[in-house]
């Protein structure tokens, strides 16, 4: 049984579905990536799973933690899961930390909540955590306010805060996007080291394929609120099957070879209101057939071994013969 299973999750903002029928699973100690451009629903999926979206947002489906459905659970239950079983860190660490509280206090708050630590014991543990996430001079830094630390240090504080609850899963929502490139590499290394040391599972939400490839073993590619392809990172990168995944990979600059213009996918992600009944990627797809406009393709397994699945009629048609071609 997977540690976290998201099943048929649909999230609707005022009639517009931002996430549609998403299925995701995270195994114990596993590192998965969720890839997609901004607005594709990758963050919303996890915010919804943890009940962190405003009350007027409609959420449907199941979110199971160790087999127990926590979707829409009462606040009391969620408060014991958030930060304790599933921790989350966010994109811009400077704004994700309370500007009027010392960072040490923000860490000890978690220690008190989830581990019942107080006073000197909590402070000592916070110091140890700061040390663990590589903050120099932790005793002094604990007393600093977020504005006195750099972006990279603030993200380390966020990670320390997440580790404070000794969670089973860390959901990292674009943890390096707001940081300088050199700092990005340091934070990724830190996440890898922490995973190795603690054995906690990691969900890395990112638009950056390189980041996911470096840290994760498996990944989901999301587009316009749906999962369009999933599989092991090796299989996804060596045999991308969805035209969108292929477009993303083609858009990466190559280190070797002649210098050329970066490839891009023409068009942009449709607004949730504009997604029709067909494949959401159809308007931007250069391989589309007329049938793509009519029915949204389900995810279908390509390889059991690599847990590779794709939601594309063209791939299905190759896999299951020319049935769809004929139908079209």
């Amino acid at each position, binding site marked *: 049984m997977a540690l976290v299973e998201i099943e048929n999750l649909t999230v609707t903002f005022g009639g517009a579905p931002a996430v549609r029928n998403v299925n995701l699973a995270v195994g114990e100690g596993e590192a998965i990536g969720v890839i997609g451009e901004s607005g594709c629903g990758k963050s919303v999926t996890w*915010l919804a799973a*943890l009940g*962190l979206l405003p009350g007027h947002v409609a959420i449907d489906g199941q979110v199971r933690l160790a087999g127990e459905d926590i979707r829409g659970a009462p*606040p*009391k239950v*969620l*408060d*014991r*899961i*958030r*930060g*304790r079983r599933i*921790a*989350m860190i*966010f994109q*811009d660490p400077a*704004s*994700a*930390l*309370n*500007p*009027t*509280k010392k960072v040490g206090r923000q860490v000890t*708050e*978690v220690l008190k*909540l*989830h581990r019942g630590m107080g006073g000197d014991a909590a402070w000592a543990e916070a110091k140890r955590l700061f040390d663990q996430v590589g903050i120099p001079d932790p005793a002094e830094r604990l007393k600093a*306010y977020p*504005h*006195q630390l750099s972006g990279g240090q603030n993200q380390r504080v*966020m990670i320390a*805060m997440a580790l404070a*609850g000794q969670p089973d899963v860390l959901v990292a929502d674009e943890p390096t996007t707001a940081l300088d490139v050199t700092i990005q590499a340091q934070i990724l290394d830190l996440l890898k080291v922490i995973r190795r040391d603690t054995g906690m599972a990691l969900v890395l939400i990112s638009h950056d394929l390189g980041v996911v490839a470096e840290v994760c073993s498996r990944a989901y590619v999301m587009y316009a609120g749906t999962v369009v392809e999933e599989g092991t990172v090796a299989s996804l990168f060596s045999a991308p099957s969805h035209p969108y995944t292929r477009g993303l990979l083609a858009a990466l600059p190559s280190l070797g070879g002649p210098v050329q213009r970066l490839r891009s996918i023409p068009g942009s992600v449709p607004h949730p209101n504009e997604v029709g009944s067909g494949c959401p990627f159809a308007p931007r797809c250069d391989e589309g057939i007329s049938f793509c406009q009519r029915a949204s393709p389900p995810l279908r397994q390509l390889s059991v071994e690599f847990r590779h699945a794709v939601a594309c009629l063209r791939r299905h048609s190759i896999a299951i013969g020319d049935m769809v071609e004929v139908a079209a």
Partner: protein
Amino acid sequence: MLIFALSRLLRAFITIALVVSFAFVALRLSGDPALEILSSDATPDAIAAFRSAWGLDDSIGVQFLRYAQAVFAGELGHSMRDGRDVLTVVAERIPVTLAITLPALMINIVIGIPAGVVAALNRNTPLDRILMAGAVAGFTVPSYVLGFGLVLIFSVWLGWLPSGGSQSWINAVLPVFTLGVGGAAILARYTRSAVLEVLTQSYVRTASAKGVPWRHVVERHVLPNAAIPTVTIIGLMVGHLVAGAVIVESIFSWPGIGRLLVGSVVSRDLAVVQGILLLVALTMVIANMAVDLLYGMLDPRTLSRRHK
């Protein structure tokens, strides 16, 4: 920090000096005290004697220098009406005014802030709408309308409360309420928007993601941050109360600074008016400094920003 404190003191001094000078000049240009204070059948000789006794014959420049010198020596002059020391005349009214402005400030805070917080936390619910409709009514109705309305209802029709006077605390009820309502309404609206603003901040979501129960998210993360802009408004409230006191004291014949000011202006009792304006300017400057100080305590970013 020392330079900051000194520069604030200098600014405070300049503010007060400007208010006092402006009042001084404006008052001298607005009419002759001799004609107001002496009875209408005073002889020209009596008028001339009055003028020379109070130094009104000299040019404005000379009068101002003389006044400034006296102020620096702690001497605010004497009332032209009864010859008493201005400091004494004003000082004996201060507690009377404080007796209604302080409770009014308490009403501002005790009603305004919780109303704003509750409205923000229940945004777009009927409760929010009722509170905000009340707030709009509270600050759009001017205090002289509200004051007379309350007198009409509670004194004239119901006969529950006195319409004026200052014999006991019961006389203070209507003035305090009249003075407090507008400020409470303004504070409620500012508090609501401050809380709403903070609720959208990423760190509030972080707190929830950590597993902090919602009540504690509000108490420990939302309110301390929303307090920062709210404190500024409370500082402005002081000015609002001083201005309000002039009107409210007149409506309810409450013998405080406000009524003394109105009476002194009418009778061109220049020294008293100047003394009161100096006091008001001082109050405002002190209120502003208190706000700055509180700001520094509430927002750790303030000091380092100033150092940059």
